[in-house]
């Protein structure tokens, strides 16, 4: 039994982590580890950086191929893909956000980890509406790049 099956929280050990160089380029980190019948991320990738043995296999991201375009972020039904880029000691994380109010660009928001704990502050850098899905890019401290997975917007 994996501990995430009991807790619902992935640890970094469960994930394929990108190298420093790959993070500087910006890559899509896929936090989808179970065999579930789902594959829209594979179809969304313009450079075939996401592969899957069959529709039930977990997706595997090729960080060398990934161009960090973010097309897979908004399509993922599990909200499980996080585009992560480190530049000038800042982390730029792009994620899906499905709550109201929708933050405006340059708003300060709370940065949450996989357990919903506030681990720092972030600034909203980009808000893109893809259908009814909000894809939001936030900027935070670089050391939190692999920890921040959600935001809280104070209304």
């Amino acid at each position: 039994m994996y501990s995430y099956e009991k807790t619902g929280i992935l640890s970094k050990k469960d994930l394929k982590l990108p190298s420093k160089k790959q993070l500087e380029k910006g890559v899509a980190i896929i936090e989808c580890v179970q065999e579930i019948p789902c594959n829209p991320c594979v179809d969304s990738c313009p450079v075939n950086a996401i592969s899957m043995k069959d529709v039930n296999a977990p997706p595997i991201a090729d960080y060398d191929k990934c161009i960090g375009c973010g097309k897979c972020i908004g399509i993922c039904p599990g909200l499980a893909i996080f585009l992560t880029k480190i530049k000038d000691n800042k982390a730029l994380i792009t994620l899906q956000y499905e709550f109201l109010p929708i933050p405006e660009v340059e708003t300060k928001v709370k940065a949450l980890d996989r357990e919903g704990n506030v681990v720092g502050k972030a600034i909203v850098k980009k808000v893109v509406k893809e259908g009814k899905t909000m894809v939001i890019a936030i900027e935070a401290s670089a050391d939190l790049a692999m920890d921040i997975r959600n935001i809280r917007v104070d209304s």
Partner: protein
Amino acid sequence: MRVNGIPNVRTCIAPLKNDIKVEIQGKYANLPDAKFKENPVKTIDIDILVVGAGPAGMCASIEAANQGAKVLLVDENPCVGGQLIKQTHKFFGSKHEKAGTRGIQIAKDLENELKELEKKGEVTVLLDSTVIGYYEGKGKKYKFGVLKRYGYEGILHEIDCKSVIFAVGAMENMLLFPGNDLPGVYGAGAVQTLMNVYGVKPGDKVIMVGAGNVGLIVSYQLLQAGIQVDRVVEAVPIIGGYHVHAAKLRRCGVPIYTSYSIKEVYGDGKVEGAVVVKLDKNWQPVKGSEEKVDCDTICLAVGLTPSTRLLSQVGVEMEFVPEAGGFVALHNNSMQTTVKGVYVAGDSSGIEEASTAMIEGKIAGVSAALQLSYDKKAKTLKKQYIAELERLRDGPFGEKPRVAKNKIKKLLEKKHV
């Protein structure tokens, strides 16, 4: 029993009056000629009757009509879509199953397809209508009584069809604990209907019981509606739903307690709190682990039971298959039951989820049409859908339905060697 000429009366609860005529009826009842609420009975003659306009029923209707069959789709709700209309989350699956599209949008897309077919006269949709029973038909046709409601009035329809597809869905399971009858104890589906269909907030602070996909998804939707979810409790030691759904909840700060259940719910006339308790390996409460939690809403997401009453009235062979969620109609690869021309699809054929329900609906629709000799590449399509269904069920999350369907297949073979 028949009372004063009216069939299918539950005589045990019918009021006793002087001079009433109580008779034993045959296997199937005759639909009486009597006027219903002074309105004349309407008769509809059709190739295929589809009961239930959820994902399975809509897909079955579209598929059968595309083959050339004339279809009547009946649903008791004021709109088509079934449970899809409250599924605000994006669906999984692949392109074929509209992956990445929200359930509510899939309902709209299918509704539009139905509307096109309605314009062409291929499909008729009867909403606010309940199939009230199966009656003795003439010749090889099946006869169903359908009551269409117009406010408090209603018109009884007599449906004569060559084939029927039951896509009638399922009912939510209840859980036994003291206080489960207090207002504020809901099924998760009911909460979803209140929030996502009617825009009504079911409460302010919720305990969700059950960490399957329904429990996880509804918890997340409660958060989206601005309602606090105190925790999710799950009796099983592991989370039953997809990890990605659990992760969405966890990163919003909602804890999931596995090996926990609800011991009792208390409150004066309404839910004011619950006692949650840890369970040991043998599912017994661990003494001293009780915790009182203030809340005003308990949401039960503890599984579903297939709706099969119409199927059993028609007389198809039923068996209890635990993995399917209860009694189900035995059916083959074509979704045909043990009665020729009677099909089943979706949750009523065994509990699963909407993507597979849609494919089962397609298989039932194309098979029913093919049996009536409507054939526009029907065999190729059917093969393709069956393969798609197998592919979706291939993973570990498809194990339960896979076991259920295999059992159903074996039981069917055993009975019809």
